[in-house]
């Protein structure tokens, strides 16, 4: 397998998480044909490059008692949206903050995600956020989640087309 294919295979395997083995990188090495050191080095390189944003435990907030999760959307004038987005990001009061396009019938262009242990707590956090950052003038909606049908990592990487080094 070429180095490029091996890297592709490594990314594919990493989407499922680090093996629960005393030597997790050796397991990945055996599945990709890279050496154990190369596997760790690639992962560190991808972290430096920003392909990997963080490396750690990916928790299920819902299962851990964070039962309320609100998508808070704002309609912010286009020329102000970057400034407002950065202000919200810097406040540390939201876990995600994105700009997305408007659509016919959908005017909201700034999306935030707020997680809390109950609905009242999230509503309180939203009220504080709007007040403390001067966002009261902007139209907004709160979309609480109800049922969670699926929650898993992305499916960006396909297995190497020629199959893994161990022949499967």
């Amino acid at each position, binding site marked *: 397998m070429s180095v490029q294919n091996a890297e592709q295979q490594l990314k594919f395997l990493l*989407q*499922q*998480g*680090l093996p*629960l083995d*005393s*030597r*997790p990188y*050796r397991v990945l090495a055996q599945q990709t044909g890279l050496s*154990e050191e190369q596997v*760790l080095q690639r*992962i560190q390189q991808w972290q430096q490059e*920003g*392909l*990997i*944003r*963080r*490396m*750690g*435990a*990916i*928790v*299920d907030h819902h*299962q*851990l*008692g*964070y039962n309320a999760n609100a*998508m808070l959307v704002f309609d912010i004038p286009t020329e102000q949206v*970057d400034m407002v*987005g950065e202000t*919200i990001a810097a406040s540390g009061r*939201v*876990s*995600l*903050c*994105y*700009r*997305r*396009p408007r*659509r016919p019938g*959908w005017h909201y262009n700034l999306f935030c995600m707020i997680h809390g*242990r*109950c609905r*009242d*707590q999230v509503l309180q956090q939203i009220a504080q956020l709007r007040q403390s950052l001067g966002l009261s003038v902007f139209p907004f*909606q709160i*979309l*609480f989640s*109800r*049922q969670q*049908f*699926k*929650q*898993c*990592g*992305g*499916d*960006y*990487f*396909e297995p190497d087309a020629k199959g893994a080094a161990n022949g499967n």
Partner: protein
Amino acid sequence: MTVPALTDLQRAIIDGYQQHLPSSLTPYQDIASELGSNEADVIAAIDDLIQRGLIRRLGPVFDHHRAGASTLVAMAIPADKLEQEALSLNSFAGINHNYEREHQYNLWFVLTASHDQALQQRLEAICERHPWPVLVLPMEQAYHINLGFPLNWNGGADDVCAKR
């Protein structure tokens, strides 16, 4: 609020290792050393957290944009068909974070693929099978992304969630 029963070791793992892992060839051994435990117990504790669905995995979070293509999608589905449609959508490759939300657009999910063209194809296949009103809302700019925030295990004296 109900928090599932966790050992001190499991809480310490969640508290200490959402943002980073020790960068050695033996990360579980290093976690054990840092927490005053042993490697077998750390691995067993993580395995139990995964088996119970409390953590999904231990590993990398890939950057959406650099890793491939993705978009947020919202659909407006009649209430009596929602669950069936949501579960059917789950069978499509690349769908994750599939939630019902309180809105006329009541089903929200993220669709991912290896590149833009593959994403477009997945989207077309989905819309063909599920022809509901749809909003396709790709991320244009990320101001903040971090779901690894510290968890608050006990609400404290002024816990609004404990008042009822």
